[in-house]
């Protein structure tokens, strides 16, 4: 068996990293240099006192490739912890999307009705446009965008996911 055989899966990988210049470049360089996929990536400081940041990466690959990604990340010097949330058990993942829909008449009403059903908030409106704010997992946002497409979907801005494990277990 070799690295490219086997079924692909989606993995949500969270990293605790030293909050210092160049860490993000190292992580991204690792993905591009070794040809791994990044579906989304988020980063922000999470622990000022220990100067740690958290990076959440969504990637896809065979089990062997995902194993490689994790061990390649783990050997980067400023990385404290690598967790594969999707393998570790139940976890929560949320992203935020800002979605601009243009249109008038029935389509506009339909967009508003669907937004309500998805609990998307209207954060800006003109007579020909809405900007919706929607939070949820990736599937929910994808589903909402699919519905908006025929209704005048014009622009999307997504954050990529923030993820965390369920229950009492803590990544530290």
């Amino acid at each position, binding site marked *: 068996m*070799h690295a490219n055989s086997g079924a692909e899966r989606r993995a949500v990988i969270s990293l605790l990293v030293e909050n210092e210049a160049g860490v993000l470049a190292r992580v991204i360089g690792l993905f591009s240099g070794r040809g791994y996929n990044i579906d989304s990536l988020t980063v922000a400081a999470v622990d000022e006192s220990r100067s740690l940041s958290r990076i959440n990466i969504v990637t896809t690959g065979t089990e062997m490739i995902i194993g490689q990604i994790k061990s390649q990340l783990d050997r980067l010097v400023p990385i404290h912890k690598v967790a594969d949330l999707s393998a570790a058990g139940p976890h929560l993942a949320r992203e935020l999307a800002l979605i601009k829909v243009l249109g008038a008449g029935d389509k506009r009403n339909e967009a508003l009705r669907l937004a309500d059903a998805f609990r998307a908030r209207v954060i800006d409106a003109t007579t020909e446009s809405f900007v919706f704010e929607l939070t949820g997992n990736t599937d929910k946002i994808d589903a909402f965008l699919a519905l908006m497409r025929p209704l005048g979907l014009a622009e999307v801005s997504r954050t990529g996911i923030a993820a965390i494990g369920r229950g009492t277990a803590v990544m530290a």
Partner: protein
Amino acid sequence: MTHLAPATAKPDRPQSGAEILLRALVDQGVDVIFGYPGGAVLPIYDALFQQSAIRHILVRHEQAAVHAAEGYARSTGRVGVVLVTSGPGATNAVTGLVDALMDSIPIVCLTGQVPTHLIGNDAFQEADTVGITRPATKHNYLVKHPDDLARIVHEAFYVARAGRPGPVVIDLPKDIVIAPAPYAAPAVTPHRSYRPNLHPAAAEIETAIALLKSARRPVIYFGGGIINAGAAAQLADFVRLTGFPCTGTLMGLGAFPADDPQWLGMLGMHGTLEANLAMHGCDVMLNIGARFDDRVTGRVADFSPGSRKIHIDIDPSNINKNIAVDLPIVADAKLALAALIAAWRADPRPGPAAARRAWWQQIAAWRARDCLAYRQSMEKGAVIKPQHAIRQLHAATLATGRDTFITTEVGQHQMWAAQHFGFTRPNRWLTSGGLGTMGYGLPAAAGVQVAHPEALVIDIAGEASILMNIQELSTLAQYRLPVKLFILNNRYMGMVRQWQELLHGSRYSHSYSEALPDFVRLAEAFQATGLIAESIDQLDDVIATMLATPGPVIADIRVDPTENCYPMIPSGAPHNEMLLGPDQPASSPFVSDEGMALV
């Protein structure tokens, strides 16, 4: 990080960053730096001038500084240190850094940088060194504040040697090395985030022993990790204890004595028939400190199809990268071998003795094919076969009784050296394995000779490779480094020519070594001795003279320009489809298009 008492006392006046840097180096046990000056590092050179604890070896090109430091590191087991200026100094060093990264050589490379306030301004001799060297190093640092300087230097040495060793760059803006800086002794606390696992788990060792005890057709395969871990003695103990056949990678040569009956020779693309067929046919494989590199595995889908595989590696990312293994053990090779030895001794199970005898008989039959054979005519005037030249060189060095270090360039000569020079001790064989850097051998030899002034240091070279860092003859002259350059001069980039012959219809596109220098006169121009052997009757005399000459020597050994390096597993072929020699069809039917695309 181990605690070292500060070797330098704190003077009463505040010390500059440059002085603090040198003090930290001394506390890390550094005695030699390989470097080349320039504007951004002038304060460091000034500080070097005013001390005597650290010796500076001036190379003639920054790439050579890194290779020399690699030679120093690999032959001593210590960290090699490099100092280069900003911009072109740093970019010239990049090839050496990647070389050290691929071959896991611990290096600390100090690069000058423009002053902090000019960074990002396209200042004179500014390059984004941390950006450029990020994928070329194990880790790198830009020192932005004098308070961080000493700590970063100590940390860099820890990172360079901890776990799987590698090169580390410290980028030093000029203002940082000029301004006063505080000193900090090496830390005694563990590193915040980088703490590689060294100890094998007891359960893993137990499972490994159970597999190994039951093996009917076992093979032990090791790599450069044994040398980095200083585990050659443990490896030999374990191999002898088990009675198993053993083979090693290019990087591992010398970790197990080549004159031992359990040694099958090197494996891989130009490995021996017996080593590769044993790998292919084994039922249990123990890999210690090797990484299933593509030169070793051939076509991965057909690699050792019937075996259960145990893989011991300090670097978890080496595990299941190319080949899926049954039992991964992330640990230091020395500790793992010590645990295996103890567990093997404690386990009374005898194992399938008859099956193992049959396995050894099979191996003996493969050995009897004598896959490394070549035909050397001994008639006066006969052309020298390169393999023979290496065998004669080996015999002559043995006869001297001197501690002998061999470096190489890259090409056929490198593979012939690996096949025909019998290495019996670790750290005596230095070659660019992972990156395959032509131009490695001469500067690496210089670094070895600096570390071992009394030793016999020989670069087995090709006439094309040697020109890539030929300027280092000047370094040899300056420091009276008696390195011997043994050039197997076939007037071709032989390895390129061989691939063109086998895979590209003998269209020798740009692989002829045109307009070569007269190596004898070149030697003389650099105050070295030049020798030439044009036919077999001159070979032994030239070798004898070379070894008896106290200073540096270039020996131009004119060898058969058409000789090819066999055995050979064409790219993309499995281990049991080896080319044994020229008598097999040149355009072998089993070189697939996919194989052609591989290098």
